[in-house]
């Protein structure tokens, strides 16, 4: 069993819809949770960075962490065609500089105009 599971998709939704992307994990030691967005042939770009359980909002993006269920989500409101990308979840036990990140395999999202 992988430490982090992420549905690879692909996921297609119409423009303006709310998108929900999810990851589950097995290691209860994970404390820091990240979402990266990766456009085709580009490096991943950090979208959200959260600590422990709870919600964090940034514009149209909301990250949600439920440590009791070992489940994290990224919600995108009013989705735009420019949101079409692969979304990677990542997590770590600590925020020390050399702490390793464990990544999901990514969900490919397409927003249909």
């Amino acid at each position: 069993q992988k430490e982090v599971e992420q549905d690879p998709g692909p996921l297609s939704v119409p423009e303006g819809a709310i998108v929900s992307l999810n990851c589950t994990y097995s290691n209860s030691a994970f404390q820091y949770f990240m979402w990266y967005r990766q456009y085709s042939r580009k490096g991943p770009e950090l979208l959200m960075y959260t600590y422990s359980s709870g919600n964090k909002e940034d514009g149209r993006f909301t990250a949600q962490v439920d440590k009791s269920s070992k489940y994290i989500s990224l919600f995108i409101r009013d989705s735009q065609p420019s949101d079409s990308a692969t979304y990677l979840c990542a997590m770590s036990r600590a925020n020390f500089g050399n702490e390793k990140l464990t990544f999901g395999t990514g969900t490919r999202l397409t927003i249909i105009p």
Partner: protein
Amino acid sequence: SQTIHQWPATLVQPVGSPLSLECTVEGTSNPNLYWYRQAAGRGLQLLFYSVGIGQISSEVPQNLSASRPQDRQFILSSKKLLLSDSGFYLCAWSGLGETQYFGPGTRLLVL
């Protein structure tokens, strides 16, 4: 602000040839540096990380090596490329108490 550069952006090399990929970071001092490989459908695989000049930790035994000759420079090398070395190579950096930020990547095709 900090920026991270990788070059070349794309590289096509024959099997058995050497490899040198370079990564540099601007706007920060003493960053932690990382090399990842990304294969389709397999996520990101950490290859090497470095916490300082000359300090390299290897995560996966392989045909590759890494070096950090300067504080903000990280180099990925191979003496003889294999077909299986093809992939998208990503460099990342992190500062104290921060998560990792990625560069634009190098796409390597070994023929």
